[in-house]
């Protein structure tokens, strides 16, 4: 699904070069749930940005769902982002004066779906996150956890090959964080490939695979037995 080989990302200023990623190698298979951990400034977010085609890389090769990223132009990269990737941000990144329907509608518009198809996908995505009855709510009328579920619904509506989550529970209290995590586990069990950057070691242990990044390089691959209890969490709208 995702295959990075010897990826380097260097940020340059007039006097300083910073290696945000160096010789970064990672392969993620379809259906995996990977947690990326590491201290602040270790390169986790850079990795996620490169993986999500939000940032370029200086060296190495990167294949996403069999497509070699190198040399693609903006149109091609945008289409890949739209069709293959779903983003879940720490700050939800919902447009405040769009209702939930219109927020989820946004990526589908750029895909060129007709109105009926968009509506079907939006309704289904909202059902998946338990917010089907609130399609015309504004984000400000929802709790933080609910807003993050809307962001997940937006990511899901395009039926992407991979979900990239950047500290998806970073702004949530523990109960809401559990709900969101449970939702991600449910999606993974349903077949979604997920890469999640997190600071939380418990969350990292709760997923199948943990990748630790330090100084722009992977220092540890750990595989854990999942510890989450799917039955104990009930997702409510």
């Amino acid at each position, binding site marked *: 699904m995702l295959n990075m080989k010897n990826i380097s990302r260097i940020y340059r200023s007039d006097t300083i070069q910073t290696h945000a990623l160096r010789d970064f190698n990672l392969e993620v298979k379809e259906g995996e749930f990977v947690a990326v951990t590491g201290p602040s400034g270790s390169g986790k977010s850079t990795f996620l940005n490169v993986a999500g085609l939000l940032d370029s890389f200086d060296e190495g090769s990167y294949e996403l769902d069999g497509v070699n990223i190198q040399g693609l132009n903006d149109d091609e990269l945008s289409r890949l*982002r*739209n069709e293959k990737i779903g983003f879940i941000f720490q700050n939800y990144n919902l447009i405040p004066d769009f209702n939930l329907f219109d927020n989820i509608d946004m990526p589908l518009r750029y895909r060129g779906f007709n109105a009926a198809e968009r509506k079907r996908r939006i309704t289904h995505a909202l059902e998946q996150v338990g917010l089907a009855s609130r399609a015309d709510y504004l984000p400000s009328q929802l709790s933080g956890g609910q807003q993050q579920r809307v962001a997940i619904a937006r990511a899901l509506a395009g039926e992407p090959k991979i979900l990239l989550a950047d500290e998806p529970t970073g702004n949530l209290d523990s109960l809401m964080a559990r709900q969101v995590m449970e939702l991600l586990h449910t999606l993974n069990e349903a077949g979604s490939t997920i890469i999640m950057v997190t600071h939380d070691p418990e969350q990292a242990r709760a997923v199948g695979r943990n990748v630790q990044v330090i100084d722009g390089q992977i220092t540890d691959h750990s595989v854990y037995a999942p510890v989450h209890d799917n039955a104990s969490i009930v997702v409510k709208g």
Partner: protein
Amino acid sequence: MEMFNYYLKLSYRNLIRNRLFFILMITTLAVGVGVFLANIAIIKSMSADPIPNKSDKIFNVSLNIWTGNNPRAELIEIMRYDDAMHILKNDIATHTMVHYQSQVYTRDIESKSLTRHQAVVRATTPGFFPLTEAPFAYGSAWQQDHAKQIVIGDSLNQQVFGGGNSVGKVLEIDGKPFEIVGVLKPWELKPLFYHVAYGQKFKATDDIYAPIETAMDNEWAINVRNSSTDRINSVSDNRGKNGYFIQAFVQLENQQQKNAMQEYIDNYSQHRQEQGEYLRDNDNRLLDVKQWLEHKEVVDERMLAFALASSLFLAVCIFNASSLLLARYHSARFETGLRRAVGARIKDVFYQGVVESMLIGLCCAVLTLIFGWLFLQISITLFPALQQTSDIDLTLILLGIGIALVTSFISMLYPLIRSCRTPLSTTLK
């Protein structure tokens, strides 16, 4: 089309969401475009071709004959009665007209009221009408040089007779009766090319058209220049004397005709020199309507200077609007980044910006027309001489809309490019 509608909806939301900002920005642009438009309206009217279908065929005739010896002086653009008659009576031109302007008091001779109306008279020749394409509503021009017959304009016809067919009615001019043989339709010539001197260039067409001989016979006043020792006792006494007061225009269809006319007036002035008169260094001159208006500087240099100033003002307004938009795009870069992250191409973001600029441009166009009209009224109030030169016609309305759209786009271009170039990874967390 679906995406266009989507962008339109997004733009409308943006405008509503940031209404104060956009009111400020649109007003800034509209003031700049409005001032520019008002200025263009004046200059356009000043520089219009008054008779576009044959402006290259009508020529002002200026002779280099003068009674005093002053060879380096400019050509005098008026001529003596005898010169005018020589121009008139050759058969080279398709149409020839000579004229002078006078003012009279007039009333309907049948009217019980003794109120008299001041009227502008064009003392001319029958060739005036086909040459200027003056449109007749009723009747035609007079047939005899000394006939006590006149043609009146629509305005005077409305004023004195209440409109309608007044052919056959009698108008009292300075106490004498004159038969109306023709009535013109409403008629405008801007600029009034046949009489651009003495602040007349943007005046309305005349009230009365009378035979030049009749006008002189009846002593209708003239402004005359004379540097000779001739004693001129009356208007009619100008015949055979050195009073300069008549302008001449001819219609020449081709270069051959023009060459013939040039040769004719050159021979004529040579003949006058042999008679003891002086010639100026400049050659006898035939200027077509556009050359004539340019020569007479119909478009005032001060207006051109003001046009430059208003263009610069418009540029300042565009820069201001652009700065405001730059700030707005900076604050909205999260949304742009988000759209790009979920699949919008750079060109999608750009198209959306273009649609937004169109919407802004349309709002700006409405305000521009209001401001343009307002500035024109202010200009007319401050400078009444502009009264006749300040029309906002359909062409200018379309131009105003066009400029508003273009300036909106220009204002948005740089902020939009900046917005499209913002690295995605820096805008989203």
